[in-house]
C-alpha cells in the first residue's frame, strides 16, 4: 500500500480553482520533488495536504496511510504523521520554543495513545536535534520564531520536523531566503531524517536545493496539473531550459 495516493485532486481558494486534477502516488522511503513556475499551485498542494482550512477541495481524493486525508482536520493530519515545513514560519510571542515543541510532541503522542514526555526525557533528545541543525541553545528559550532571522526560522522548521518525526514531511520552499551555508545545514538535517519509513515531498522553485536533497522523483506542476514526471535528472533539464518550455508544452497539449 502506498503512503499517499492522490487522485484527480481539485482545490480552490476564494472560489478560484488552483489545483485542477492532481494525480500523485508516494511510497514510504521515497523523496518526491514538486517543481514549477510561480503560481502553478505548488504551495497550494502543500497546504491542502496539511489541511489548511482556507482551501476547499472540490473534487478527487487523497488516501493517506489507508485513511481519507480530506476528512481530517489539520491537527488530525499532523497527529497522523504529516508535517509541513512552512515557507513563512509564524511567530508566536510569549511562547518558548522548547515548550511549544514539547506541547506539540505530547499532543501527537496523546493522539497515538502514548505517554506524554516530561521535561527530563525531552531535553536530552531535544539537545541532540539542536546539534544536528547547528542551532544555539539560547534560541530555544526565546519565543517561537520571534526575532529569528530568515535562515534561523527555516532551520527551526527542520528542527521541529526532527523532533516530531513525521511519516510524511512536506517542505514548502524551504530553500527560499537561505544563503548557501544555511542551505547546506538545512539539507544535512533533512538528509539525516531520510529513511525507509519516511517519505518527503519537497516543493521548490529552484533546482539548487535538489543538489543537496537529491530526490527519487521529480514532478513538474504547471497551471494546477502535473505535466511531467521523471527522475532527478529532470530537475537539471528544467534548470537548463526553464519552465517556459514546460508551459508551452502544456499549452500545446491542451490545444
Amino acid at each position: 500500500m502506498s503512503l499517499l495516493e492522490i487522485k484527480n485532486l481539485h482545490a480552490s481558494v476564494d472560489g478560484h480553482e488552483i489545483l485542477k486534477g492532481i494525480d500523485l502516488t508516494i511510497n514510504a522511503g521515497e523523496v518526491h520533488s514538486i517543481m514549477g513556475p510561480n503560481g502553478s499551485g505548488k504551495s497550494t498542494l502543500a497546504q491542502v495536504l496539511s489541511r489548511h482550512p482556507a482551501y476547499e477541495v472540490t473534487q478527487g481524493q487523497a488516501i493517506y496511510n489507508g485513511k481519507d486525508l480530506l476528512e481530517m482536520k489539520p491537527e488530525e493530519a499532523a497527529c497522523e504523521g504529516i508535517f509541513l515545513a512552512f515557507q513563512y514560519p509564524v511567530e508566536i510571542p510569549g511562547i518558548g520554543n522548547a515548550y511549544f515543541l514539547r506541547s506539540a510532541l505530547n499532543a501527537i503522542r496523546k493522539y497515538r495513545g502514548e505517554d506524554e514526555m516530561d521535561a527530563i526525557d525531552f531535553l536530552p533528545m531535544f539537545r541532540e536535534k539542536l546539534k544536528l541543525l547547528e542551532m544555539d541553545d539560547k534560541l530555544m528559550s526565546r519565543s517561537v520564531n520571534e526575532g529569528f532571522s530568515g535562515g534561523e526560522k527555516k532551520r527551526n522548521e527542520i528542527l521541529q520536523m526532527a523532533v516530531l518525526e513525521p511519516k510524511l514531511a512536506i517542505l514548502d520552499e524551504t530553500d527560499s531566503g537561505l544563503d548557501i551555508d544555511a542551505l547546506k545545514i538545512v539539507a544535512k538535517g533533512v538528509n539525516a531524517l531520510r529513511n525507509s519509513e519516511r517519505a518527503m515531498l519537497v516543493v521548490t522553485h529552484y533546482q539548487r536545493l535538489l543538489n543537496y536533497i537529491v530526490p527519487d522523483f521529480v514532478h513538474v506542476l504547471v497551471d494546477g496539473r502535473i505535466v511531467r514526471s521523471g527522475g532527478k535528472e529532470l530537475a537539471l533539464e528544467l534548470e537548463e531550459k526553464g519552465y517556459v518550455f514546460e508551459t508551452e508544452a502544456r499549452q500545446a497539449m491542451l490545444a
Partner: protein
Amino acid sequence: MSSSNLETIRSLAEQDYKWGFITDIEEERVPKGLDEKTVRLISAKKNEPEFMLQWRLKALHHWQSLEKAQAEPTWANIKYPPIDYQEIVYYSAPKKKVNLEKLEDLDPEILRTYEKLGIPLLEQKRLAGVAVDAVFDSVSVGTTFKEKLSEIGVIFCSFSEAVQKHPELIQKYLGSVVPHTDNFFAALNAAVFTDGSFVYVPKGVRCPLELSTYFRINAADTGQFERTLIIADEGAYVSYLEGCTAPIRDQNQLHAAVVELIALDNAQIKYSTVQNWYPGDKEGKGGIYNFVTKRGKCQGVNSKISWTQVETGSAITWKYPSCILQGDNSVGEFYSVALTNNYQQADTGTKMIHIGKNSRSTVVSKGISAGHGQNTYRGQVKIMKGATGARNYTQCDSLLIGDKCGAHTFPYIEVRNSTARMEHEASTSKIGEDQLFYLRQRGLSAEDAVSMIVNGFCKRVFKELPMEFAVEAQKLLGVSLEGSVG
C-alpha cells in the same frame, strides 16, 4: 478567517460560568434604599464608634449632593441603563447563631460554598502559604491563620474587627488615599461599606504568608460595598491576593469597592487580583457592575506598590488601580490582563502620579476582546514639578479574537518636569488564521492553539502573579501555563 476556526474561537469564548450557583442560607438584610437611616442602621449593626458614623454621614451627604447634580461619571467608554440606587439592598449578611470565635463555628453551607470555589477555609489552616479572609455578601465570615500572623505583629482581620480593635489605625488611615470626595462611587462606598479586609504589617516585618481575601456575592438585589485597607509600615513587605465570584442572576448587581494601600519608607506592597464576577449571559443579560476605586500611596522613600490584575468577569468593569508616588525613589507598577467576551465592557487602566524625585513607574496592559466585547485601556501618567528624574514605561497591547469586538486606548500623559523620561508602546493584533494553522499543523487542537496564543500574549503579566494565582488565572483564560522547559 475560515468558519471552522471562528467556530472554535466562539466556543472557547463562550465557556460557561462555573461559579454561578446560589447558596441557600438565612440572611439578615436591611430594607432597600439609601438614606441617613440606612447608614445609621449599618453603623449600629456593626457597633461602630462615633467617628465612623460621622465619617459615613459626611460621605453620604456628599454622595447625595453628587446624585442630585447627576454627577455619576459618564466619561468612561461604557454603556449601561441608569442605576436606581433606591432599589439596592445595602446590607445583607448570613444570619449567625453565635459570635464567631472559631472558623469551625461557620455556617456549614458557607463553608461548602467556599469549598466549591476551591477555598476550603479549614483546610487552609493546615496548609502553609496563604492566609484567607472570606467576605460573603457584606460581611467577612472568617480569617485563617490569624493567630500565627499576630505572633509577628501582623494584623490581618475583617474591617469590622479592625474598627473595634484598632480604631486608632482606622482613624489615621481610612480615607487618606481615597477620600470620600474622590468620586461618585467612592462616596457611595464610604457611606455604606459593610466590611472588607484590614492589614497592618509593622516596621521591618516581612509578612511570611500571602494574605488573601475571597469575595463572594450571594444574595439577590444586593450591592457589595467592601473596603480594604492595607498599611505597610517602614521596611515592611506584604503580598495580598484578592479573588471574586458571584452567582448567575438576571439582574445586574453593583459592586463598588474601595481599596487603599499605604506604603511607608522602604515598604513594599504587592496586590494581586483575579476578578471573575459573573459576566452576564451570552446576550449580555445580568452580571456584575464592577465600579471600583483602588489606589496606593507610596508615602515613604524607596517604597513600592505593585498592582497585578487578571480581569475576566463582570458585565462592566470600571477601575483604575493607581499609585501616588510621593516618596523619593518610590516605584509604582501596574500589570493587567483584561478579557471581555460576549457583551462585556471594560474601561480599565491606571494612574501613575509622580511627585517624589526619581520616582519610577511601569505599566503593562494586555486587553483581549472576543465576541462583542469592548475593551478600553485608559491610563494617566502625571509628572509633577518636583519629580526630578521621574521615569515611566507604558506598554499597552490589545488582542482581538473574531470580528465583532473592539479595543480602544486612551493614554493621557502630563509632564511638568523636563528631566522626566517617558516611554509609551502600544500594539493591536488579531489572532490570525496563519498563527492558528501553524499550531494546529504541529498537532495542537484549535482550542489549545488559541489558548497558547492568548497565554503567550499575557505572559508578561502572569509572571507577576503569585504561583497559585497564576494557576487560577490560567484556568480562567482556558490556557495552559508554560512548563519548566523553555
